[in-house]
């Protein structure tokens, strides 16, 4: 398959680009909710509009009311989200939770997917335990209890946790903390007794929670997939989320770069446009080169994932690592080349820097994924 968008995908990109630039613009969404100290960090109206546009169900199978598309299409929406810094529960709900639910029972799918497709429900995922992403180690325990389970443990960095109607929780039903096997995924409703969330605002104005699961009682039908068979679903979910985060990061990089290059063509110092200075030209051109490469590996990994290719795992980590490095470069060069104005809250370039930092950390940073590239490659 060629590494560019086909006609249908190009049409989706056009409509997503227009929609996000109009409805998801920084002033209309990110700044609007941030300046009102919104407890969700995003607008529910916009989320409904996502539903009307069909974005919410891109990865949801057609028989469940979705569009049954793939990661290339989800990535198209995410890149536009990234360019416009549009806050929404798309990545956690329509990519991560939707991927897990897709492996769930008919009952679970019927319970949760229609609300997601309509842009009414918000979902979150609780994976991390501690400040760094280490999904190989899961300490949270789920003990058998009657017909169901009792969950105990702590989860961190649960994006949109406080706004979520349901949280996908990875817990251990057997084995030791570091075992690959013995993991089970649960769909935990927001009002479950013993689910305690402590909400915090992050540097990019998004909302996350620290979760304490204090003997949370769940029915057996809250299990997604098989008991003890959650690792495969978790990996599937992580691959989807990681390439999604990479696509959004590529959008952040592009947004920051475009803004910076525009600025080089407007700002005058020493009687010249600063874009005339070769010191800045070379840095801008290096950045362009890196952003192009990052975008190429993102679409490569998306296609491999959609084709269920064995090398998808490797290329998803390559993409997440590469984008984390490149988007980091884009926002740092962005702030530096904007000079003093880049340090002001009034100017948008700083918002890109903040969002990039949060995205880099989400589902594993460049160091985590480079380590994974080494391990998968056999060294």
């Amino acid at each position: 398959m060629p590494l560019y968008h086909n006609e249908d995908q190009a049409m989706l990109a056009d409509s997503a680009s227009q929609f996000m630039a109009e409805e998801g613009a920084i002033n209309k969404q990110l700044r609007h909710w941030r300046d009102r100290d919104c407890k969700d960090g995003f607008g529910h109206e916009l989320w409904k509009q996502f539903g009307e546009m069909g974005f919410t169900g891109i990865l949801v199978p057609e028989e469940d009311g979705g569009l049954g598309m793939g990661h290339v299409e989800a990535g198209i929406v995410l890149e536009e989200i990234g360019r416009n810094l549009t806050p929404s529960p798309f990545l956690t709900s329509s990519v991560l939770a939707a991927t897990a639910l897709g492996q769930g029972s008919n009952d679970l799918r019927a319970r949760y997917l229609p609300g997601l497709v309509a842009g009414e429900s918000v979902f979150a995922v609780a994976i991390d335990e501690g400040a760094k992403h280490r999904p190989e180690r899961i300490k949270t325990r789920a003990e058998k209890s009657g017909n169901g389970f009792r969950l105990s443990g702590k989860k961190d960095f649960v994006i949109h946790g406080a706004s979520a109607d349901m949280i996908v929780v990875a817990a251990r039903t057997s084995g030791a903390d570091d075992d690959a096997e013995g993991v089970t995924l649960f769909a935990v409703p927001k009002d479950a007794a013993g689910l305690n969330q402590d909400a915090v605002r992050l540097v990019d104005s998004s909302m996350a929670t620290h979760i304490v699961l204090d003997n949370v009682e769940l029915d057996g039908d809250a299990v997604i997939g098989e008991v003890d068979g959650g690792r495969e679903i978790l990996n599937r979910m992580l691959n989807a989320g990681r390439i999604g985060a990479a696509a959004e990061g590529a959008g952040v990089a592009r947004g920051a770069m475009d803004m910076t290059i525009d600025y080089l063509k407007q700002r005058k110092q020493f009687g010249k446009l600063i874009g005339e200075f070769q010191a800045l030209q070379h840095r801008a051109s290096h950045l362009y080169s890196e952003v192009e490469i990052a975008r190429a590996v993102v679409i490569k990994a998306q296609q491999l994932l959609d084709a269920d290719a064995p090398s998808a795992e490797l290329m998803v980590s390559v993409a997440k690592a590469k984008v984390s490095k490149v988007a980091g470069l884009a926002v740092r060069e962005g702030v530096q080349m904007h000079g003093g104005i880049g340090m002001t809250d009034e100017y948008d370039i700083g918002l890109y820097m903040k969002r990039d930092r949060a995205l880099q950390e989400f589902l594993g940073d460049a160091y985590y994924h480079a380590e994974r590239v080494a391990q998968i490659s056999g060294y």
Partner: protein
Amino acid sequence: MADLDTFRSETRAWLEANCPEEMRQPARDEEDVYWGGRRATFKNDAQKSWFEACVAKGYTVPAWPKAYGGAGLDPAQAKVLREEMSRINARPPLSSFGIWMLGPALLHFGTEEQKTHYLTQIARGEIRWCQGYSEPGSGSDLVSLQTFGEDKGDHWVVNGQKVWTSYADHADWIFCLVRTDKSNKYQGITFMLFDMESPGVSTKPILLISGNSPFCETFFDDVKVPKDQFVGEVNRGWDVAKYLLGHEREMISGAGGGDRTAAIGAAMLRHSGELDPMLRAELAMFDVDALAYSAMGEKFLDEIKVGKAHPAQPNMMKYAGTELNKRRHELMMSAGGSRSLEWDSEETGGGKPSRGWLRTKANSIEGGTSEVMLNVISKRILDLPGS
């Protein structure tokens, strides 16, 4: 699609029948590469029979028209052939600046007569070409070149000096940029073709830091060039040169990465037995960049085929690919330790690691320096002011 599948199975069968076993492994030394030309000799029968089979089939230049010695393959078929050759590690039957550089220029700018004559010679490996561009005073600023062709009616008399002429001492003919109008910088250069055996042509190999001499200085002392031996128009050779530089950058960018051996970490571990933690970390970061760049290479080729790539994108590919290759060899030297310092030991194949490492330093100089590539990206892609 069905046609392509048929073509693939036919190609596979043809390769099976015609590509000798010895030609299905990477070239180990310079003699394993066949360059053709008047003075060429084959290293062995396998090299000869593989070359001759390809000439007969048009597979030395598969995408060129049949009339000029090619096989007339369309881009999809050419890709299938590349894939099938790479699947069995088949060596290129013929390496040639005629194929890579002069050919594309002639296909674009040549007269019908020139195409029939020169392209067919190239396809059959009869003439080995070299390229006369750079001069001692004209490197990155190539257009300032001074080698002068004086108009003598039915011929020019060429005087001057070229430098960095690859394998000039082995070449039969040269394609050469010669100033024919001193009053016009850009529109005063002619793209000439002439025989290296012409009286007044001499070459002198340049010893490089790698200890090898793949390049020469080439001197022209009253060389007579008939007035019909030029490509394009008289005084418009710069157009041809610019077109060709694009090709050269594509070629070099392809060589710098874009293949499945892009990642090196695992090979370095096998080679060294163990890796220091910090080196392992650097190798992992390199592999991320290398694998990402190989995706870029694939995307770039896909986009070129349908005209989606920015016309200046080869400059970006060349920049990123050559910088990556230099980094690759730095890491290979580190992973190899003191063994990789050996200059002429048998174990290192005569200092391959160190000589190869030094050779890569030219990647970001030849064919346009990295700094010139960045200038071009600034001007043509980012549209930055005043560049």
